[in-house]
């Protein structure tokens, strides 16, 4: 019986250690469009994300309306004409770190990772892969990534008159500072 308890306890510990989730509610995602006519930058500092270091699962949830721009008109057009944020209020990503074994979460340091998964924007889902870094720091995990997306892939229609103002390929930057989720 004693041994049973030990096995149970060890397995349980193993479970507890493995069910480590890290979360943030104020991560940053920004995108940048550069053309000869104008530069457009949208910043969102209210990105929610969870990273499960036991499985490498990583999810993001972005409220489209929380993107802010230098010009109020850009913000209105972004929401009204391109993202249709009242119809599709959220963008999500769910994916996995594919090279989880190369990250040692017990040792502070910076690790290169590749994340693959489904990116849903404007109610269109595409498989994407992006390179980034995971930085293990005291009290949390920082994650960074830069990748490109093409609005057309997400059925975001850019009409002729403004085609010169918006880049075909948008640069997306992701900066997350995760803290551990208190176990419930």
């Amino acid at each position, binding site marked *: 019986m004693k041994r*049973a308890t030990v096995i149970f306890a060890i397995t349980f510990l193993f479970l507890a250690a493995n*069910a480590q989730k890290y979360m943030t509610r104020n991560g940053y995602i920004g995108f940048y469009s550069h053309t000869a006519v104008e530069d457009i930058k949208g910043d969102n500092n209210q990105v929610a994300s969870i990273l499960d270091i036991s499985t490498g*699962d990583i999810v993001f949830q972005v409220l489209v309306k929380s993107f802010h721009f230098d010009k*109020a008109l850009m913000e209105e057009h972004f929401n009204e004409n391109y993202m249709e944020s009242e119809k599709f209020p959220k963008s999500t990503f769910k994916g996995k770190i594919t090279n989880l074994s190369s990250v040692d979460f017990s040792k502070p340091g910076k690790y290169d990772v590749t994340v693959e998964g489904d990116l849903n924007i404007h109610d269109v889902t595409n498989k994407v892969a992006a390179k980034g870094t995971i930085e293990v720091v005291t009290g949390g995990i920082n994650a960074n990534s830069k990748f490109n997306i093409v609005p057309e892939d997400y059925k975001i229609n850019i009409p002729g008159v403004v085609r010169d103002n918006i880049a075909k390929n948008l640069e997306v930057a992701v900066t997350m500072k995760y803290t551990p989720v208190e176990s419930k």
Partner: protein
Amino acid sequence: MRRYYSVILLSLILFSRQDRLFGQDDLLDMLDKEPATEINYTTATFKSTRVLNGHSVERMPAGQLDVRISHRFGRVNSGAYEFFGLDQSNVHFGLEYGITDWLMIGLGRGTYEKTYDGFTKLTLLRQSAGAKVMPVSVSWVSSIAVNSLRWTDTTRTNYFSSRLSYSHQLLIARKFSPSFSFQLAPTFVHRNMVATEVDPNDIYALGAGGRLKLTKRISLNAEYYYIINPKDFMSSKIYNPLSVGFDIETGGHVFQLIFTNSRAMIEKGFIGETSGSWLKGDIHFGFNISRVFTLKK
């Protein structure tokens, strides 16, 4: 031994449950379950600060300058000689600026009675969902207009104050869906001097305006003001202003194409001085062009 196996098995079951509980979708669900901490303000109840002739609940955000050029042509029933009204043009220029995100001011000059006008618009409530739920947006707009026509009778004592008129409106709007918005506008217009004794100095009206999005960039708008004062005893026949038109949005510009029975583009003019009747074909074609510049970021 068997017992140990069963313990391991039990642990494994727990483990697999745990695993299933926290798949990627469940992680997303976990994010969803967090309470909404953000206030989700409704945007673009109307595309422009005007429904058509009258103000909409919208205002310029801080640091944004709206340059407006509006035209109303003559009546379409004036015939081919007047090129269906297009030979006569009546223009209004406006410079309108957002001082803060809840206060905007505007200055204008119109052909109609060579009027100079100014207004302030205050955002009182904003429709929102999420952490704060507000069913309607409410704005208040007050304007003043100065008629600068030369006095017809220079022999009497003419006071500057006689050229002034005022309007006050409470704008209550709700965006019912991404494609439909509706606004009510109780309105009070005061004219310091009127043409004859039978004409009231104070005019009360109730406005209603709506916007129906046809495509992402084009909407059908309609606006009507019901004038509450009895209209039968005034020195000249006036009608309730009715306007129908389209908003066409192209990047930085909003074009509004309008059919209306009013010639004036300010409250004092179209509420209480609209002399055209839709039924008789006294319809003016016109347009508003709005171009927004960002002066301060």
